[in-house]
Each structure stands twice: as structure tokens, then as C-alpha cells.
């Protein structure tokens, strides 16, 4: 089952298109949010700037208005005191300073701000009136006649009246204009912000739709993977089962034929039939492994627990693999230590398969010497199945890898040593399902020993 999980995990790897999609989704979301926030801030700043300018201009004009009112008041006070002037000169001087002030103010205000064209007429009027007042003050300086002064002051009064109303007009006009401008700016800002919010929402929705689309694509792909994996397992289980039937028939016929059940054979016929038998036995081992692997992946492998005779286990392996060992001039030996009970509990068929795999593996990787099977009791609660060979051995670095499925010591070895590469992984998986643990000791060029320790469950 763990292999299946690994398989699924590997299949979760994203294709470039999916990665691009996810990146696009993230970029779209981020850019959507950034655009709306940035624009909102920028427009806010613009609005603030506009308001500040408006306030400054207004303040300037209001100042001007106050200046004119002050001057006017002073002129009126002078006029009231004309009949009885104690120190008219001093008073005139004050008015002169006021008027000078006023003139400077008007000049600076009208020059600093670019008034809209509609206001320029009023501005010119104010400038004209200021110039007249300036001249009047100058003429007032020259004349010492109180009558003339009175006349001049009177006309100065009316002139200031005009200036005051002109400035008031400008103030009103500016106030209206600026109110309009603020409203306009606000409206345009709102419209622009609204657009941005809409754009942001659309972008976000779009990116979420994209994300959803990708999620669904991935989910359906995962389902497809799981389904195809299940179908593959089912197919493998069916095919393996269908394969076993004819293989068993071939194996049976060739064994009977080699035994002479169908009449005496010539030497050549006998060795040929034995070759058929060896190849069929190997093929059967591979198909059994595939079937078991498929069943394990499907979670359908069920183990039986029934009494079996350890000697039968060894005998069946001997009879199946003796010919294979003898064709390589290898000695296939076995022993059961005397302390082993005559009957053990377990799944005989699976144990046969484990032993078949270990022994055929040992024969495969041994060129000369022997393969030895041993059943013993390492302690009171366990029994051990051991296969020792005098073969090529396995280096310490590779010892942990040999139990991985489809692995062989050297991948180039697959050609030399035939096999599906499933044998040892099946041994490990089956043993562990039975509560056993597999270990390996090996020295390169000297040989290997595979040991499986099972819990001892003797028949009661």
C-alpha cells in the first residue's frame, strides 16, 4: 500500500501548464489588489493637493478683503475727524501705509495666482481701482488744503467702496468656482475609484475562477490516476490469474513427461523437457510475484493460517528448483534443526513463494558452490528461514536497496540475470505481512545470507 501512496504522490507532480496557471493566478490577484490600492492612494493625494491650493488662494483673497476693509475704516475715521483734525498728518501717514500695504497685497495676490479667464475682468478692475487709490494718496500728500483733502478723502472712500465690492465679487466668484471644482474633483475621483474597485473585483473573481478551474482539473486528474491505477491493478490480477492456469498445465505436462509418464524418452528429449520445465518454473515464479504484488496493491491479499510441515516447505522448493541448481552445477542443500516442531502455523503457499524467491535468487547470482536452506529456532518465540549462497554477494551500500521493487544489483545485470526484479521486494512484503522481519548479511565475492524471523505459532 505504501508503494501505491508513493505512486500517487509522484503523480501529483504538476505539469508546466498547471504551474503556469497557478503563477498566473497569483500574479493576477496581486496585481488586481495593487492596482486598486495604488490608484486610490494617488487620487487621494491629488485631491489633497487640490484642496490645499484652493485653501491657500482663498486665504489670500480673504486677507486682501480684510486689508481693504481696514483701510476703508481708517479713511472713514479720517473723514469723521476732518472738521476737527488735531494731527491730520499723522492720520494721513497711517492711511498712506495702509494703502501701500493694500497695493502690495493686490499686486502679489493677482500676480501669484492664475485666475480663470472669467475672473480676469474683476482682477483688472481691482488693479485699476488700486492704481487710482494709489494716485489719490499721492495727490493727498501734495495738497495741504483741508477742503481738497476732504474732497480727496471722500472720493477715496467711494473708490475703496468700489474696491471692496470688487474684491467681494472676486471672493464670491472664487468660492463658487472652487466649490464647483471640489465637487468636480470629488466626482471624478469617485468615478475613477469606482472603476478601479470594479477592475479589482473583476481581476480577483477572474483569478479565483482560474484557481477553481485548476483545482477541478487537478482533482479530476487525480481521480483519473486513482481509477487507472485501480484498473491497472485489476487487469494485472486478472491477467496473472489467467496466465497461471496454462503455465500450471505446461509445468504439469513437462514434469510428467520428464518422469517418463508418457513413455521412455531419449537423453536429448529428456534434457529438452527439463529445459521446458526450468523455464516454466521461472515463468511461474514471476507470474506469482506479479499476481501477489497486484493483490497487495489492491489490498486484496489474504493470508491463511494453518498448520504445515516445515519439511514439506523445503521439499516443494527442492523439487521445483533442483533442476535449475543442477544445470549450474550448484549444490542445493537443506537442514531443519532438531528443535523445530514438526508442524508450524502459517500460509504454506506464501512461504513456498518466499522460499522459492530466495532460493531462485540465490541460484541466479551464484556461479559455483552451493545454496543452503536452513530452518531453525533462534529463540523460544521465533522460527527462522535462512538461505545462504556462495554467490557474487552485495556491497554494504547496496544491501538496503535490494528489497526495493524492480531493483537489481546492477541494472545492466537484468540482461545477464533474468527476472522481473520483483522477487526480493515480494519476499520482504510477504514476510512483513506475516509478522516476520527480513535481514541480509553479505560479503562481495563470498556470498549472501538472507534470514527471515517469524513469530513462532506452533499448533496447539
Amino acid at each position, binding site marked *: 500500500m505504501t508503494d501505491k501512496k508513493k505512486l500517487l504522490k509522484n503523480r501529483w507532480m504538476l505539469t508546466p501548464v498547471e504551474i503556469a496557471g497557478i503563477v498566473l493566478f497569483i500574479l493576477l490577484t496581486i496585481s488586481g489588489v495593487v492596482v486598486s490600492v495604488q490608484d486610490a492612494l494617488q487620487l487621494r493625494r491629488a485631491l489633497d493637493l487640490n484642496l490645499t491650493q484652493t485653501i491657500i488662494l482663498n486665504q489670500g483673497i480673504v486677507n486682501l478683503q480684510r486689508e481693504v476693509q481696514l483701510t476703508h475704516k481708517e479713511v472713514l475715521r479720517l473723514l469723521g475727524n476732518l472738521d476737527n483734525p488735531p494731527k491730520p498728518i499723522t492720520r494721513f501717514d497711517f492711511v498712506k501705509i495702509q494703502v501701500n500695504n493694500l497695493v502690495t497685497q493686490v499686486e502679489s495676490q493677482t500676480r501669484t495666482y492664475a485666475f480663470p479667464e472669467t475672473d480676469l475682468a474683476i482682477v483688472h478692475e481691482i488693479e485699476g481701482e488700486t492704481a487710482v487709490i494709489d494716485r489719490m494718496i499721492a495727490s493727498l500728500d501734495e495738497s495741504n488744503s483741508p477742503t481738497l483733502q476732504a474732497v480727496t478723502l471722500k472720493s477715496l472712500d467711494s473708490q475703496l467702496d468700489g474696491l471692496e465690492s470688487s474684491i467681494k465679487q472676486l471672493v464670491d466668484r472664487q468660492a463658487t468656482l472652487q466649490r464647483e471644482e471640489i465637487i468636480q474633483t470629488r466626482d471624478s475621483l469617485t468615478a475613477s475609484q469606482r472603476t478601479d474597485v470594479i477592475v479589482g473585483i473583476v481581476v480577483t473573481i477572474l483569478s479565483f475562477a482560474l484557481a477553481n478551474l485548476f483545482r477541478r482539473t487537478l482533482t479530476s486528474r487525480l481521480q483519473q490516476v486513482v481509477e487507472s491505477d485501480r484498473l491497472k491493478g485489476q487487469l494485472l490480477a486478472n491477467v496473472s490469474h489467467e496466465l*497461471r*492456469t*496454462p503455465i*500450471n*498445465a505446461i*509445468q*504439469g*505436462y513437462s*514434469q*510428467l513427461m520428464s*518422469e517418463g*509418464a*508418457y513413455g521412455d524418452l531419449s537423453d536429448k528429449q529428456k534434457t529438452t523437457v527439463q529445459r521446458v520445465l526450468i523455464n516454466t518454473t521461472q515463468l511461474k515464479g514471476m507470474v506469482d510475484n506479479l499476481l501477489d504484488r497486484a493483490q497487495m496493491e489492491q489490498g486484496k491479499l*489474504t493470508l*491463511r493460517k494453518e498448520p504445515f510441515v516445515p519439511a*514439506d516447505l523445503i*521439499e*516443494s522448493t527442492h*523439487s*521445483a528448483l533442483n533442476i535449475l541448481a543442477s544445470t549450474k552445477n550448484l549444490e542445493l542443500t537443506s537442514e531443519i534443526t532438531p528443535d523445530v516442531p514438526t508442524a508450524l502455523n502459517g500460509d504454506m*503457499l506464501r512461504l513456498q513463494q518466499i522460499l522459492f524467491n530466495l532460493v531462485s535468487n540465490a541460484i541466479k547470482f551464484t556461479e559455483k558452490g552451493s545454496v543452503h536452506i536452513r530452518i531453525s529456532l533462534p529463540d523460544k518465540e521465533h522460527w527462522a528461514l535462512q538461505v545462504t549462497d556462495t554467490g557474487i554477494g552485495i556491497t554494504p551500500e547496496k544491501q538496503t536497496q535490494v528489497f526495493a521493487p524492480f531493483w537489481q544489483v546492477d541494472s545492466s545485470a537484468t540482461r545477464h540475470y533474468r527476472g522481473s526484479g520483483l522477487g526480493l521486494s515480494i519476499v520482504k512484503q510477504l514476510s512483513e505481512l506475516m509478522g516476520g522481519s527480513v535481514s541480509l548479511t553479505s560479503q562481495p565475492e563470498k556470498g549472501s545470507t538472507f534470514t527471515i524471523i517469524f513469530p513462532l505459532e506452533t499448533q496447539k
Partner: protein
Amino acid sequence: MNKPLALIIEDDYDLSEIFSAALQRDEFETEIIRDGRDAIERLKGPAPAIVVLDLHLPYVDGATILKQIHATESFSSTAIIVATADAQQADSLQGQADLILLKPVGVNQLHELAKRLLIRWRQNT
């Protein structure tokens, strides 16, 4: 000396031939029956020493034949060997047969079995 008779009830041609050849090697005479109806009919005939019975058969299934064999008095001393690939079914028939073999059944297994049955048969006769 008479040879014991092995009645092989098996619809798979190859399996029945292999069973037959293996048992013949071990000094049995063999008779092959390939469907359930013929098997029921055969119960009227002389009793064999052993019956090798497959459970999936055409017309009448193995479990029914097993019951019929038990009900046939002349077959009372016949050793019944059931061969099936279905482990669950094998478990459910525990106690109803002298031996239950899980397919695939190898030739060596058959030889071992035949030897033991032959000894038993010789003791009984």
C-alpha cells in the same frame, strides 16, 4: 494385485489429464468425468478408492456433488479430495472432505498425496 481406482471429476481438460497421468504413475487406475451431471450419474456405479473433486463444474456444482457422495452408501469408504482455487470456499468445506487441496496443485504434491493414499488403501483392503 488390483489397482485402486481414482475418480477425477474436473472440467478443465489439462488439469484432469495431469491429475490422471500423475496418479497413474503412482499405480492408480483413473477415470475422468468432466461435468456435474455425469458425476451424479456415476455415483450409481462401482465406488472408487478416491475421488478428486473440482468445485466449479458445469450443470451441477461441486458442493452438491459432495453432498450426494456423502449420501451414497457405496462410496462410504471412498477418500474424498476436493481441489479448488477459492480459499474461502475451501475453508467453508472444512470437515466435509478427507483433504482439501488449494489449486494450483503441483505434480509433486500429487505424487506425495498418492503415496499416502495408496498406503491407506492397502491397509483398508
